């Protein structure tokens, strides 16, 4: 074998001392993650647990009404108080976690799939199709997102699924634009040309190089999207077009509770806090992941 190799120690290149084993790497990850991200991560884990296994935290039936005990202030028997129907707000907030997070996730997924299809197609296509898609996206931007959402609701009724679809469609143009830019960047990246000069076919490059690389920041987009989708959907609930009663969807609870603000602030406060919390934690974690990802590229 021909070699001009020498032992690593004598190659005079600065070696990064901290990229050694996986053990060290984990340690570095732990140390380089700010406390805020840890707190957000822990809260997020709690939310996800509540979503997946609400029974872990449920002490009362979230749907059981008790008009005689309506508007109870937070206290020992009801940690977050009761609502206008005497339902336990803590239980409802927990029972609603699944729906709200699922809604956020589904809406983001729908937005990303639609936006991704448009954006990636535009990014890899020729000038004509690209500018046609861009125009279309431009029109969707000029088109009020709320209208898009309301039309979906008008066509298919209300409910969590529709809300997710509505919010997803409403956010699709943004994702389309983002993913088109991302695709253009990937397409122009030298490693794509490298794949070509290695003799890869165009379809192979599209499937194995372009799409996976466009999809790289997807996880980040999803975490960032969930929070925003929940906030968006809560606006639909505010307009009375969100989840259906008696669903314990946060936005709907908040919208209901606003009427009782002056006698029972807790009805609106807790779902409001949870919406903000969900958006906040997913965003913080998402931003952190994004920074890490950017640091890698």
């Amino acid at each position, binding site marked *: 074998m021909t070699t001009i190799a020498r032992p690593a120690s004598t190659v005079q290149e600065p070696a990064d001392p901290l990229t050694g084993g996986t053990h060290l790497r984990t340690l570095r990850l732990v140390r380089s993650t700010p406390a805020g991200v840890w707190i957000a991560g822990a809260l997020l884990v709690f939310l996800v647990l509540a979503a997946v296994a609400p029974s872990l935290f449920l002490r009362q039936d979230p749907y059981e009404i008790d008009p005689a005990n309506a508007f109870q202030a937070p206290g020992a028997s009801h940690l977050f108080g009761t609502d206008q129907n005497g339902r336990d707000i803590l239980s409802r907030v927990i029972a609603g976690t699944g729906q709200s997070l699922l809604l956020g996730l589904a809406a983001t997924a729908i937005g990303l799939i639609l936006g991704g299809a448009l954006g990636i197609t535009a990014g890899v296509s020729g000038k004509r199709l690209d500018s046609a898609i861009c125009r279309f996206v431009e029109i969707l931007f000029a088109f009020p997102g*709320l209208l898009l959402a309301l039309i979906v609701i008008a066509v298919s009724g209300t409910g969590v699924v529709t809300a997710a679809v509505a919010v997803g469609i409403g956010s699709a143009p*943004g994702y389309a634009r983002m993913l088109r830019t991302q695709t253009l960047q990937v397409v122009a990246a030298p490693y794509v040309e490298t794949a070509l000069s290695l003799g890869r076919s165009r379809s192979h490059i599209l499937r194995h190089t372009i799409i996976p690389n466009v999809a790289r920041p997807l996880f980040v987009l999803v975490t960032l999207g969930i929070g925003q989708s929940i*906030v968006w959907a809560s*606006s639909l609930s505010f307009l009375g077009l969100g989840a259906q009663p008696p669903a314990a969807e946060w936005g709907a609870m908040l919208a209901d509770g606003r009427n009782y603000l002056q006698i029972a602030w807790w009805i609106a406060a807790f779902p409001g806090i949870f919406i903000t919390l969900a958006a906040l934690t997913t965003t913080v974690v998402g931003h952190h992941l994004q920074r890490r990802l950017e640091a890698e590229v």
Partner: protein
Amino acid sequence: MVGKRAAGSVFVLWAAVTLTFFVLHLTPGDPVTAILGGAGSSPSPETVAAVRAQYGLDRPVLLQYLSYLGNLITGDFGVSYIFKVPVIEIIGPQILPTLQLAGLALAFAWVIALAFTLLTVGRGRLLDGVGRTLEVFFASLPPFWVGIMLAVLFAVILGWFPVAGDDGFRSLVLPALSLAIPLSGFIAQVTRSSFEEALAQPFILSARARGLSDAAVRLTHALRHAILPGLTLSAWAVGSLVSSAVVAEIIFARAGLGRSLVDAIINRDMPVTLAVVFIIAAVYILVNLAVDLLYRAVDPRTNPTGSAA
């Protein structure tokens, strides 16, 4: 260039209206029911027939579309199904309040965002963390929730601002803030990262090596770079502010296009819906134009990505 841009704008307007027109035709809900007052009214069959004829609803959709377009070109937006008055009389008075609201909201959002950026970026881990967290927090707030809180606190309890209405600047403050606070979170996030980026650029160091103070460097060099991506975001924001203003309009009982739009869709008031879409699209186009001009003023490089000569 100008001609091409104008043609593009007309195209976007046309497409937005056309899309709305046909999509609305696919949504359930008989316009006649809308015209006759919906639930609670019990019109005779003759009335229904008369309405159909009067509004041309008995004609094929394509014909309705063409005549709508024809009228639109002459500036006629038609008659509202619900209010039975010319659409322009309904939305005409709403345009200015909405633009004022959206404009002020954007201005507030920028003030808050820039305050965050200038006060917390690059000023130590603690301030940086506080700024970052507050921004994300703001961006995570549902606007209507902010609106209600502001109304309860500043109008009902403290009485500093009017609860509702649309007379004068004072009544504009709270609604604008309720839209501005979440938006400021978004703008601040992008300005923060571009400000951070700018501060890390060698030209900042150059300026400091010339003897400039930290404050001067921030204000005269970094800030200008930092607002560029926020400007682009603003173009999008104003378009969406006009329609998402609905929550502020409802809470603060203001006239405005947002409420017109939502009510029009909910009640299938097609002419009003179309007109609002038209105006929002026009606003979007104009704002984009303005932002482009502004962008060029801030960044005189012809090619925004920077080109080597």
